[in-house]
């Protein structure tokens, strides 16, 4: 597939940019924080996204979605990055849907996907247990007990876990790791809301003797490690798309500031010390655009070097978003440090996305392993 957007995708991106700049500008995030919003996102906005079809954009048409593929939702996430829009789009409509598509039985799909596509049923992935992303380290246990499962353990950094209707949970099942679809209202499930530094909400979830029937097993028993990795690669590429959006926006705001801010009687953008750093950052962002687009295409085409590509994309885009947001603060000077000014929100959101699903170090290591060194 050529590394350009087709007309349909360009229209989708423009529509997304227009909708988000009107319905969910950065000021909305500030308002959510200042009003102490419990959900951490606007339910009204979410209804609007559902009306646009975004909540089901990845869901096949047979299950009530648009079937636009990964490139479609990736473009929207990139635009959400520009406006720092808070919503369960990544957790539910991308990661949750991908999990059902990759591992769900036809029963599970037809039961859940229509409601997820409509934005009425929210999904969240619960796989990490410690402070550092490590999907191989699973202590959560599911024990078979006369035709039912009993789950015990706890999960951390569950994105949008506080509002999820169903949790996708990894647990040890004797012979390996399995995935479970756990309704959040099941007895024994305790969800604790944790506000994080970008004013989004995460959750820690505890499972105490949670009893589940066989139909809650997602995919094959004992052999979900590979599936989980594939689900995580989708999550990683989605996070990279969002980071690409926020890096571009932070960069464009910074370049604009360099042209306007005057010191010593001239725009500070006329100083070569700043020009060269801006030019380098421009290049880094161009590289990331290619990566994100290639990764989204690779997901749509089911290419087989996806793991390597996902790690490359997550690490490089994370590194670039780090640079873009750090330079944004530095080049804005003192005003960049103030809470009144929006640029700091970009730095905060970057840090969350950098940590989720493996930070740059995690993915450098994974990339090197995959390449045999």
């Amino acid at each position, binding site marked *: 597939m050529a590394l350009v957007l087709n007309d349909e995708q360009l229209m989708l991106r423009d529509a997304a940019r227009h909708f988000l700049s009107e319905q969910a500008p950065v000021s909305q995030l500030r308002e959510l924080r200042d009003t102490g919003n419990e959900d951490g996102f606007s339910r009204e906005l979410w209804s609007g996204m559902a009306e646009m079809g975004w909540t089901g954009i990845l869901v096949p048409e047979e299950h009530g979605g648009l079937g636009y593929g990964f490139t479609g939702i990736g473009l929207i996430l990139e635009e959400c990055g520009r406006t720092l829009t808070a919503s369960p789009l990544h957790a539910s409509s991308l990661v949750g849907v991908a999990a059902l598509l990759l591992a769900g039985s036809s029963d599970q799909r037809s039961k859940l996907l229509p409601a997820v596509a409509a934005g009425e049923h929210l999904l969240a992935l619960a796989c990490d247990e410690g402070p550092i992303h490590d999907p191989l380290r699973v202590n959560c246990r599911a024990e078979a007990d006369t035709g039912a499962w009993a789950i015990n353990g706890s999960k951390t950094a569950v994105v949008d876990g506080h509002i999820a209707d169903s949790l996708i949970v990894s647990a040890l099942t004797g012979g390996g790791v399995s995935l479970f679809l756990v309704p959040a209202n099941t007895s024994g499930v305790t969800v604790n809301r944790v506000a994080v530094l970008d004013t989004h909400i995460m959750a820690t979830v505890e499972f105490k003797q949670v009893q589940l029937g066989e139909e809650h097993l997602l995919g094959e028993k004992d052999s979900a490690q590979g599936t989980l990795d594939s689900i995580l690669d989708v999550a990683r590429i989605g996070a990279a798309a969002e980071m690409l959006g926020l890096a571009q926006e932070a960069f464009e705001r910074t370049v604009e500031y360099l042209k306007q801010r005057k010191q010593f009687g001239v725009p500070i953008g006329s100083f070569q010390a700043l020009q060269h750093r801006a030019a380098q950052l421009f290049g880094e962002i161009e*590289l990331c655009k290619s990566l994100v687009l290639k990764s989204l295409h690779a997901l749509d085409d089911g290419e087989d070097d996806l793991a390597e590509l996902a790690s490359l994309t997550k690490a490089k885009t994370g590194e670039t978003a780090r640079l873009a947001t750090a330079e944004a603060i530095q080049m804005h000077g003192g005003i960049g440090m103030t809470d009144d000014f929006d640029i700091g929100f970009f730095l905060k959101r970057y840090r969350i996305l950098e940590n989720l699903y493996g930070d740059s170090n995690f993915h450098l290591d994974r990339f090197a392993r995959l390449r045999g060194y």
Partner: protein
Amino acid sequence: MTETNEFRQEVRTWLEQNCPDSMRSPHRSDADICWGGRNFTFQSQDQKLWLERMAGKGWTAPAWPIEYGGGGLGRAEVKVLKEELARIHARPPLISFGISMLGPALLKFGTEELKQQHLPPIVRGEIRWAQGYSEPNAGSDLASLAARCEDRGDHYSLSGSKIWTSYGDLGDWMFCLVRTDFEAKKHEGISFVMFDMAAPGVTTRPIRLISGKSPFTETLFDQVRVEKNQVIGELNQGWTVAKYLLTHEREMIASTGLSSAGTIPVGRTAAHVLGTDNGVLHNAMLRTDIAKFEMDERCLELTIERARDEVKAGVSLGATSSMFKYYGTELNKRRQELLMSIHGNDALHWEGEKSHEGRLARAWLRSKGNSIEGGTSEIQLNIVSKHILGLPG
């Protein structure tokens, strides 16, 4: 799609029959490169045959029009040809500044007469070209060049000097930026001219580099005769041609940062030389640097691919050649640094067969020039900040 497949089959069959066996392995050293030209001595009968056969098909310049001796191939066909050549590890039949640099400028700005005169001999590898751009006092500030080309009625007379002429001592003809209007502003008095380097008044002096090699010369002109019809583009409009060619040159240099087909990736070399534990390289610090390098290498590759796709779709970004030149050359410097670290003291050898006459050390030293030649990294960043980002000053 099927047309491309048919073409692929045709190319494959032709290569099977026409590419000599000894030409089916990468260059072992610079001495294996076929440069062509009046004074070129072929290393072997096979090398000569390979050039003649490829030139006969026009495939030394596959994208050029057939009427000028080229292959007349479309973009997709050129790609197929490249892939099929790479598949059998075929050596390039000819490395030529005529093909890579002068040709594109002639095709875009040259008169019909000049195209007919110069392009076919370039395709056949009969004339070796040298480029005369930089001068001792015109490096980054190229437009301040001072080589004087004066009107003498029926011809021009050129006096002055050029520097950093690649293989100037081996060139047959030169394409050269000269000053033809001495009163005009610096960008407006420059012309793009061509002349035979065998003409009286041309002297070349090789420049020895830190790598111990002399791939460049200083080139001196003392009243060299330049024919009046040998001007590309309008008189005094040479800067337009020069900029076009520089853009082209920068795009080419960019790919020096990428490992070409058949090169062993740096990470695999490191694993082989240094050894691994459970698939993880012994040297953890070096491993991180290598992974970052290989990531950036893949990024650049994909971005060049995207830029090509964008041009095809008619949504070009414009001044991106500067960005690619900057990244490609900085990347190649990193590659050479990593290879020096991986090979340790073995990479320090300067002579002897084991080190292929100090190949690693010389390549490392030579790479330092990548971010200087064709416009320094700093000049590329200036261009990006002014022409893409629109920053003032």
